[in-house]
């Protein structure tokens, strides 16, 4: 397999290009996404250059999040496979009804007469753009039956998971962390897909399990490296999707290490770490040598000020301390 180093952004761009080439029904709908000459090419330039080959499949809309997602649903119900772009995940609240009540329930409500193969891409995570442009919300969506929630953490995963998400017949919320767009990683030249609901062991270890999703997966891997130098063997698992959620890979690791910390960028209260911790407690109670550790953002909006924002968000130090805390139990 031939690989090359490309950015997370380019990996997403390749996935969109390949899927549009593969199937006529795939189109992209959103704000400022037009990727041709004079086009904005997406707030994070993910649709850059796509109009060269697919001019009529990049549909720029006004600022109408509800109708972007709702139109994607209606198009999907009639045979299209749209990809909707919501510029910042914070704005998804505007489209919440269409995502939760329409997209996620249509297959169920119609007993399978209609399905809704849509992908809603949104940029999450804090990069200093203040309280209404910085949120990472995942537990709201993993709470919704009928909706998949995917958070890639590497260019390889970004491309493979986006291709799978577009081909899936269910609605998928695809969250792209803003700090990852410029991160590079090796991606095969050849076509590949990654099944939804398959966790990845980022580094194997025997002493502690570290479950980390999205941008946090990279931080967790760094922390595992530091701890390895200090003689602690940490296994890092990236679930890659919160729905479907591959708990079996996590359980297997916990049965081996007996200690686990779960990390996500969402506010800690009722965040995805709460659900994962509860599932571990239910399934692996007798294996645990310490309470399940949890790392998340403090329960506050994300401030514009860098110092305040860093104080609120989880970082490598928080993960490091949480691991040491379960080890010391």
């Amino acid at each position: 397999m031939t690989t090359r180093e490309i950015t997370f952004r380019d990996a997403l761009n390749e996935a969109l290009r390949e899927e549009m080439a593969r199937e006529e029904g795939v189109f992209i709908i959103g704000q400022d996404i037009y990727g041709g000459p004079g086009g904005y090419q997406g707030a994070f330039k993910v649709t850059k250059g796509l109009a060269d080959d697919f001019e009529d499949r990049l549909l720029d809309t006004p600022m109408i999040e509800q109708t972007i997602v709702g139109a994607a649903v209606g198009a999907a119900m009639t045979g299209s496979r749209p990809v909707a772009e919501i510029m910042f995940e914070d704005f998804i609240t505007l489209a919440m009804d269409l995502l939760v009540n329409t997209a996620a329930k249509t297959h169920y409500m119609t007993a399978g007469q209609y399905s809704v193969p849509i992908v809603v891409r949104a940029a999450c995570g804090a990069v200093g753009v203040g309280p209404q442009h910085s949120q990472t919300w995942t537990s709201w969506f993993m709470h919704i039956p009928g909706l998949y929630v995917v958070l890639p953490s590497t260019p390889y995963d970004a491309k493979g998971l986006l291709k799978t998400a577009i081909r899936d017949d269910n609605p998928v919320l695809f969250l792209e962390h803003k700090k990852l767009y410029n991160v590079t990683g090796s991606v095969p030249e050849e076509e590949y897909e990654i099944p939804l609901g398959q966790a990845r062991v980022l580094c194997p270890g025997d002493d502690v399990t570290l479950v980390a999703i999205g941008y946090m997966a990279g931080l967790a891997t760094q922390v595992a490296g530091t701890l390895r130098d200090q003689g602690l063997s940490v296994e890092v698992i990236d679930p890659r999707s919160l729905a479907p959620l591959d708990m079996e890979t996590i359980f297997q690791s916990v049965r081996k290490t007996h200690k686990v910390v779960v990390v996500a960028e969402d506010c800690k209260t009722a965040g995805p770490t709460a659900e994962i911790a509860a599932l571990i407690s239910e399934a692996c109670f007798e294996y645990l040598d310490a309470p399940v550790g949890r790392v998340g953002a403090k329960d506050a909006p994300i401030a514009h000020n860098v110092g305040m924002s860093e104080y609120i968000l989880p970082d490598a130090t928080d993960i490091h301390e949480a691991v040491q805390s379960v080890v010391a139990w």
Partner: protein
Amino acid sequence: MTISEELMLQMYRYMVLGRLFEQCAEQLTHRGLIPGAFHTGIGEEATHVGATLALTHKDYIIPTHRGHVADIIKGAEPGRLMAEILGRATGYCGGRGGSVHLADAASNNLGVQAVLSAAYPVAVGAALTQKRANTGRIVLAMFGDGASLMGTFHEALNLSAIWHLPVVWVCVNNQYAMSTSFAEASAIANVADRASAYNMPGHVVDGNDITVVYETVREARERALAGEGPTLIECKTYRQGHSTFDTNPYKPQEEIDAWSKRDPITQFEQRLRELGVLDEELITQIADGVQRQVDEAQEFALNSPEPPPEAGVEFVFRSSEVE
């Protein structure tokens, strides 16, 4: 546009069917056989029937939670429709949807959007597929006066206009959103006056005159197919009932009396008598035939099994392995 005698009789028959079907469902609700409330389109039949008859079988429709006859005209079997309303296994959604989430994919009925504001964006998306694939089909989106005041109305109608989408927007203005009268809730008197804000034609028509509704929707459909974009049509009518939980205490008696004199079925019946299309014998014959159809639907539904409770967790996701 001339309307054939055959079509006039079809219009009349469907209006009678719509009324008797919903009266039957109302009675079943009062007998405790239908979970939740049941919403009728009694008094609004000319709008629901006239607009739906203007479609072909292949056109798409988003009906409202009233006017179940629209589903039947589109192609749904009354028996399976009633079964769904009763929550039975033989219903179109296997009992998961009920009256207000009813859909029938085989007749391109996209289903009711019970969070009313969702109908507009979904219609835009369905129309987008028709335009992109050049299918020669349109989308008819029906909604009430109450829903016309929701935010997605603005987003979606504007988008449908700038993209010249093949969609016909039909407002069933029955004067009330639950207990809130349109006169009190809207800054302007006519929903269709808003069409000018979207640079599309707007028509206010008598929603109790079935031939006017039919002709107006038919023309809007032709316009949409010609690539000239959407049309907003407002059918002024009156909700004679509401839901099975509502005795309408907020409606002035004079208003109820005035509109009951304009009942769409009575009016059309009179007109067809004058035209010599209907006589006493034919009226009885149609009434008997429709009653039989409703009785059969009721019987089918009541004899249909309840779905197994565990089926309540099926169809949450579509599995490519299974289907």
